[in-house]
């Protein structure tokens, strides 16, 4: 068993320090890099906390061939599953997208 605090806690704590103390002290030319680092840490922290399980999505080849077109029996379930997967992926990569 790993020693606490865990990965997510370490990342969140490090990010808070970066934003509160380092970012204001950095020259203007480096602020964008610091914001990118903060963003990367935020994604990694959310990924570390995430315990989503993903169903097997519809096969790309079948979608391409029209097997899930509107009016087919599998259409509604397929689009619902794709939406669920996309939302779960956004929850880690860009949670603000879920607010829209």
């Amino acid at each position, binding site marked *: 068993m790993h020693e606490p605090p865990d990965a997510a806690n370490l990342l969140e704590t490090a990010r808070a320090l970066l934003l509160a103390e380092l970012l204001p002290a950095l020259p203007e030319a480096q602020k964008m*890099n610091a914001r*990118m*680092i903060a*963003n*990367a840490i935020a*994604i990694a922290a959310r990924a570390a906390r995430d315990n989503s399980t993903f169903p097997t*999505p*519809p*096969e*790309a080849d079948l*979608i*391409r061939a*029209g097997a*899930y*077109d*509107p009016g087919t029996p599998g259409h509604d379930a*397929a*689009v619902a599953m*794709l*939406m669920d*997967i*996309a*939302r779960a*992926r*956004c929850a*880690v*990569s*860009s949670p603000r*997208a*879920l607010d*829209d």
Partner: protein
Amino acid sequence: MDDARRGAIEDFLRAASGDPALRITGAALLSGGAIQQNWALDVVLHGAPEAWVLRTDNAATLAVSLPRAAEYALLRAARAADVTVPEPLFLCKDPAIAGAPFFVMRRVAGIAAGHRVVKSATLGGGRDALARALGQELARIHSIKPPRADLGFLGAAPADAGLAFITAQRAALDRQSRPRPALEWGLRHMERTAPSPVPTRLTHNDFRTGNIMVDEAGITAVLDWEFAGWGDPAADLGWLCARCWRFGNVAQEAGGIGPREALYAGYGDVDDARVRWWELGAHIRWATIAIDQAERHISGVETSLELALTGHMVPELELQVLRMVETAHA
């Protein structure tokens, strides 16, 4: 830029400009994109100061971007069609001079950064005027018709730009290691609802907020021509209006800058349904570009936090694609 390279570029510019006394008095790297480098050159030409930009490639470039010589030809063609572009001055095809082919154009003042442009209510004469001006610029670009000997590098115009787009996007997905069912969902919808083809025109293919330089009075330059090709003009309108290119200012549908109606009015005759079809395509295309960019980082070709983070934009684009398809069905 080291002294040897700067000296070689200076020698080239002396010969190209016909001024053996030309001097480079300053060279500073501007904030460039992932693909190319831009250098601000301060030059003394015939005894008078000039402000130029030298544009060249990064070592690792996207396979889909046009080389500098092609971009130079596009700038010349655009300028002849009254598009607001920086004046192209000199082209150097010899990679030995600067490490890669480059061209020099006149430096234009203004702001391009998307997040700043969309926040301002006054830049470019105000939101309505700027959106209208964007439409006018696009109409001028779309006045350029194939075939054109000077733009031969663009290849033959596709018979059906919409279907060609779907084929190209599927090929881009097939090059990747993991399937992308949400993007496939969007492409299949596009295939089922494709509008009939129209005569192709020159399309910029990256005409969006962030690539348009503006000042308080208006547009000062349409930048970044490296994705241009023969296509459906509505594709450019769709790319500009796509929600993913509004820099968070989603209520202003023309690139986060101004109203869609003003853009359309500036452009002229617009088939709105066709633009919306391409808007869905814009999200799919941006997603496949983002996947490619992230792959450059993941594969080790170019380790870059910016490229890595670009990959994390893909889920949001996938969600938007699914939402747009559902809205279209509703």
